[in-house]
C-alpha cells in the first residue's frame, strides 16, 4: 500500500489497482457491504469526515470487479484494471 | 368633464341582450368621434340573473366607470327594476316594457319621467321577437340622441354583418326594429 501526497491510498491487486481518495471518502461503508469478496475493511487513514477510509484487507482477495467504485456516492474509489493478455 | 355626459343604465335578465345593446351604442358613439365608456356589470349574475350595463357618452374624457343615477334607465324585467332602483334618481327617465306585470308598483317615486313602452308586444306582432333588444336600442337612441340613426345602423352592420350576409332580410328587420324603438319613445335621434 502507498499513500500519495494528495491523500490517495493505492493498493496493487492481482488484476490491477485499488485507489481510494481520502478527501472524498466519507466513510459511509456502502462499498464495504457490496463487495462480493467481502474484502474491504476500515483503514488507519481518515477520510474527509474524520472517519476511517476503506481499504482491501488483503490485496490478494480483491478481484478488481469495480462494484465498490460504482456504488460510492462520492466517487472516492477508482479501480484500475490491468489489461488481460 | 367639459361637455355634458349622458349616462345610460340598461338592466335585464341574462340573455335579453342588454350588454349587446350597450356595446353597439358605445361602438357607434366611438365611431362618431365621441368619448364613450361601457362598463358591464359582470357579477355573479353573469349566468342567470340580472345583467346591467353602464354606458356614458360625452365629448371629453369620461371619469369614473360607474355612476350613481342615470339620465336614462332601461329595465327589461321586473327583477331588473327591483334590483337596480338605486340607479334611478330625480334626473332619471325610467323606461320599461309595458308587458312587465307589477312594474308600476316597483317604480321608484323619485324618477323624473316614467315611460312604459310596448317593445315586446310590437316587436313580436310586427317584426320578430328576436329583435326585441334592437327595438330597445332604438328606444335608448330615441330618448338620448347619443348617436345618430345612421351611426347606429353602421354599428349594427359591424356587429351583425355576418348574419346579414347570410340572410339579407335580417338587415331590414333590424333597421325597422331600430326605428320602431325610436318611434315608441317618440323622439328622433337623427
Amino acid at each position, binding site marked *: 500500500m502507498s499513500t500519495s501526497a494528495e491523500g490517495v491510498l493505492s493498493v496493487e491487486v492481482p488484476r490491477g489497482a485499488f485507489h481510494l481518495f481520502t478527501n472524498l471518502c466519507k466513510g459511509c461503508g456502502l462499498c464495504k457491504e457490496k463487495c462480493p469478496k467481502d474484502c474491504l475493511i476500515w483503514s488507519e487513514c481518515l477520510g474527509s469526515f474524520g472517519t476511517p477510509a476503506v481499504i482491501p484487507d488483503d490485496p490478494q482477495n480483491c478481484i478488481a470487479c469495480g462494484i465498490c467504485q460504482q456504488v460510492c456516492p462520492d466517487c472516492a474509489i477508482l479501480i484500475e484494471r490491468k489489461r488481460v493478455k | 368633464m367639459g361637455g355634458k355626459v349622458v349616462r345610460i343604465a340598461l338592466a335585464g335578465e341574462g340573455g335579453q341582450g342588454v350588454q349587446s345593446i350597450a356595446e353597439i351604442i358605445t*361602438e357607434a358613439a*366611438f365611431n362618431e368621434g365621441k368619448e*364613450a365608456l*361601457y*362598463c*358591464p356589470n359582470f*357579477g355573479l349574475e353573469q349566468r342567470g340573473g340580472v345583467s346591467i350595463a353602464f354606458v356614458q357618452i360625452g365629448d371629453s374624457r369620461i*371619469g*369614473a*366607470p360607474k355612476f350613481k343615477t342615470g339620465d336614462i334607465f332601461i329595465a327589461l324585467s321586473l327583477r331588473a327594476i327591483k334590483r337596480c332602483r338605486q340607479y334611478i334618481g330625480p334626473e332619471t327617465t325610467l323606461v320599461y316594457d309595458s308587458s312587465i306585470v307589477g312594474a308600476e308598483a316597483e317604480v321608484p317615486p323619485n324618477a323624473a319621467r316614467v315611460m312604459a313602452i310596448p317593445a315586446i308586444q310590437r316587436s313580436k306582432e310586427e317584426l320578430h321577437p328576436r329583435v326585441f333588444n334592437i327595438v330597445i336600442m332604438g328606444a335608448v337612441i330615441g330618448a338620448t340622441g347619443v348617436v345618430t340613426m345612421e351611426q347606429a345602423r353602421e354599428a349594427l352592420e359591424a356587429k351583425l354583418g355576418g348574419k346579414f350576409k347570410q340572410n339579407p332580410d335580417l338587415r331590414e328587420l333590424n333597421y325597422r326594429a331600430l326605428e320602431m324603438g325610436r318611434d315608441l319613445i317618440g323622439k328622433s335621434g337623427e
Partner: protein
Amino acid sequence: MASVIEGEKKVFMTGNEVAAWAALAAGADIMFGYPITPQNEVMHYWTRLAPRYGRKFLQTEDEISAGFTTCGGLQAGCKAFTATAGPGNVLMQEPYGMAEAMRLPLLAIIQQRGGPSSGTVVYSQQEVTLTTYGGNGEGHRIVYSTASHQEIYDYVIKGFNVAWKYRFPTFVMGDGYQAKMRESMVMYDPAARGIELVPANPIIGLSGEIGVDRECVHLCNIYSLEEELYEVLQKMEADYQKMTPEVVEYDARFCEDAEIIVVSHGVVSRAGQDAVKILRAQGFPAGYFRPITLRPFPQEALRKAVENCKKVLVVESALNQLQRLVKENLYDVALEVDALAKPAVGIIADEIVARYKEFRK
C-alpha cells in the same frame, strides 16, 4: 420581429384586450396563465393574437405553476409574462418571491377583484398591499396603478422595459372595471414613438460549450448563512433605491395652494380628478395627487405636494391600503388624514366632493 401595430390606431375595446395587444407590441414572447375573472380575456385575446406573431402560450394547472413557468421562461431569456387577479394573485406571491430573489424581469398584469378570499369577481382596489408588499420579502417590486385603457397600453409596454432594465418584478395593476369596460385609446408601435424595447437575454441555457467557451451558470436562490443573504438583500435594496428616482411616477395638480389634497390611485383617480375640478369650479381650494407607481412610492413628490396643505383625503376602493402607504410616506408631517374608503365598491366624483366638504368643516 415585425411590428404589431402599424403607426397609430384609435380603438374602442376592453382593457383586457388592450393588455394583450400591449404585450404583443412590447415584444412578449410567451404567456403563462390560469383562468381567473376578471383577467381571463387577457388570455383569450393573447391566444387568438399570439400565433399570428409567432408568440406562445401555455395554460398551466394553477397560478403557482403559471408564475413559476413564467420564471423559467425569463431565465431562459424570453419575455414571458402572466396575468392574474384576487386569489390567483395570492397564489402567485410564491413565484413573485422567486422573481424578486433572483432578480427575474417578471411582468404580471393584475386586474384587482373584491376580496378577501373569492370575494367578488367584479372590482376592487384591495390588492394594493398584496401586489406591493406580498410575499416573504421587502417588496422589491415595481407596481404601476393604471387609470385608463391608454395607460394599460402605455404601462404594459413600459413595464416590460423597466422589468428587463432593472430586473425587479413589475406589475401593471388595473382592476375589474378596467379589465371589462370599453373605452377609446390609441395603440401605437413603440418604435414609431421612439420607445426602444429593452432586449431580453438568457441567464441560463447560455450558448457556447461549457469548459471551452464558458463556465456553467449556477443560479442560487437559497443561502446557507444569514450574512450571505443579508449581503444579497443589501445589494438589492441599494439597487432599488438607485432605481427609484428613475422609475417613480405621479400626477399632481392644484396642490400649491390647496387646503385639502385628494389622494387616489388607479381608476378611482379619474373620479378624484373630476371631483377636484368640480370643487375648484365651486371655489374650494382642492388639490389632486395620484401616485402612478405605488411601489416605489412617490414619497418625495407627495411630501412636496402637501407642503402647504392642512389635510389629506385618501380615496380608495379599499379600506386601508393606499391610506397605509400615504401615512407611511407622510409619517412625520403634521397633517390630518381622512379617508373615503369603500372596499370593493366603485367611487364617483360626487361622493368625493361631498366628503371633501364634510372633511373641511
